[in-house]
């Protein structure tokens, strides 16, 4: 693809984001998003609309800020059990640019999640829209396409 894309830097950025979710630090994770940034996990395959169709997650900055506070709230009982994840990201590709010039990066992910004495596996593809900024990036949007979005999942209490 375009020679001007530093894929190593992109890779490094995606790994950094994932590391803030592995041992959740939503404060640092949120700082990687632009003020108009969104996080979207559709509830069906090929979903194209987060507003007129149902999703597991569709957070903008406001919801991210609320979730960040909820995540560490002492009375959120679903958060009494620690959640730990291990993200593996691969097949990272530059898939063009969006209309406003953001980099479109696609990748595959596998996440092993440990929560409530149980280990679960999630897999799928990510699509990141990244704003290039200084020598790094900001996330304008992240879309998480599970391979089984329509399955009956248990609680997912942390972003994948």
């Amino acid at each position, binding site marked *: 693809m375009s020679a001007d894309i530093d894929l190593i830097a992109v890779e490094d950025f995606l790994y950094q984001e994932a590391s803030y979710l592995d041992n959740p630090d939503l404060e640092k994770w949120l700082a990687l998003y632009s003020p108009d940034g969104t996080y979207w996990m559709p509830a069906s395959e090929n979903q194209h609309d987060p507003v007129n169709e149902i999703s*597991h997650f569709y957070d903008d900055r406001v919801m991210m800020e609320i979730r960040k506070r909820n995540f560490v709230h002492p009375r959120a009982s679903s958060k009494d059990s620690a959640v730990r994840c291990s993200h593996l990201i691969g097949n990272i590709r530059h898939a063009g640019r969006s209309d406003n010039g953001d980099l479109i990066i696609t990748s595959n992910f596998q996440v092993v999640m440990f929560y409530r004495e149980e280990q679960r596996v999630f897999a799928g593809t990510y699509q990141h829209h990244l704003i290039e900024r200084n020598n790094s990036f900001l996330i304008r949007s992240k879309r998480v396409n599970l391979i089984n979005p329509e399955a009956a*999942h248990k609680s997912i209490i942390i972003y994948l």
Partner: protein
Amino acid sequence: MPLSNAEIARLVEDRRVHKRVYIDPEVFELEMERIWGQAWIYIGHESQVPKAGDYFTTNINHKVPVVMVRDKHGAVHVLHNRCGHKGAKLVEQRSGNARGAFRCAYHGWTFQHDGQVLKIPNETGYDNTGFDLKDSCNNMQKVAQSASYRGFVFATLSSDAPDLETWMGGAKDCFDNLCDRSPEGEVEVAGGVLRYEHDCNWKYIIENLNDTMHPMVVHQSVVQAAQDYIDTLPEEAVKQRSEAEIILPFGGSYENMEHMGITGFKYGHHYDGGKTSIHADYSVDPEYHKRMVAAYGEERTKEIYSFNTHNTLYYPSLTIKTAVQNIRVVRPVAVDKFVVETWSFRLKGAPDTMLQRTLLYSRLINSVGSMVGPDDLECYRRVQDGLHSDASEWVEMYRQFGRDEDLGDRVRGGGTSDLDMRTEYAAWRDYMLQEAFS
């Protein structure tokens, strides 16, 4: 040895239920047979099968597979999803269209959309065998009864169950209110479904619906998290966020919850709210209001809005939110496992903003990624674990016992009473003792 009726009767008193109803696999199996095998169970909405041959599959209890299908004359059937030949499940997909006929993957028998067998390959092999091609036992069998009320399709495996409307009793008003909130008087499924696995007994969720003693405790964290952040925002910015009016009422006081009131009916149905509910202060979209008034007139529109319920349970399988226009369907799997489906509805003739709010609500409150549902589930799980203790055999439901007001076809009580739970267990007992329809 199955449980005797005497043993079953001992599990439920008027103010206490025995822990076995939640943790004993034998009780669960019997519930599947006697509650889920007798009551009207919600299957799906007619709008899920708009065209001839469209189908939707589910299980009526933890096992019995059924298919809801529309035939070429427009009628909707609920059939056992079982081939008339050697019994293979005929339709594997959750939904789709069976063009022309259902065709079995095994030996290729085909069936009309009303279940009637159409063609058997190499039929001559049955000549002079005593096999009767015309015998209806070769068809896909219809369930004992199926019926639809304003598009909501229910089925029962019992031929003794009274007709659907009789069975719903006064709780039927809530379906009317849900549909009347559409300027055209009709709703349709829209935006897809959420499925949420719960690793606990199915009864916790229906006991939780109108358990108004829990939100201010269980959901305090999300309410405070939202409030903390909202406090940092300019007032104008907050007004534009429907999230605020959806999340914050979960922190309502005991007084507010008490004021909603609970109304219980025969067969275990109940709703809370009526005059008011935690959804009563939602802003009204001006365009929506305009269309409502055009359709119904000012007075009737007000009347429709003012019947504001929180959750209405059609025991045991369905709970609806009239003011939000979403429903949750309980699909039991095992004594400690069930799946909840959340379906959102479009009010026909209403602006898109209405459906968008419904979907926002479903996502914020009912999705696996929500900050509300997971805290409810966490508590059910803890009850499931805690009840294995021998410290006590009983779970209590005393709140405001003796203060319920009997109005003949319904019983009314305080919003923070255990009237909802007592209503459910009266029905539980009747179904389990096979006295519900006698």
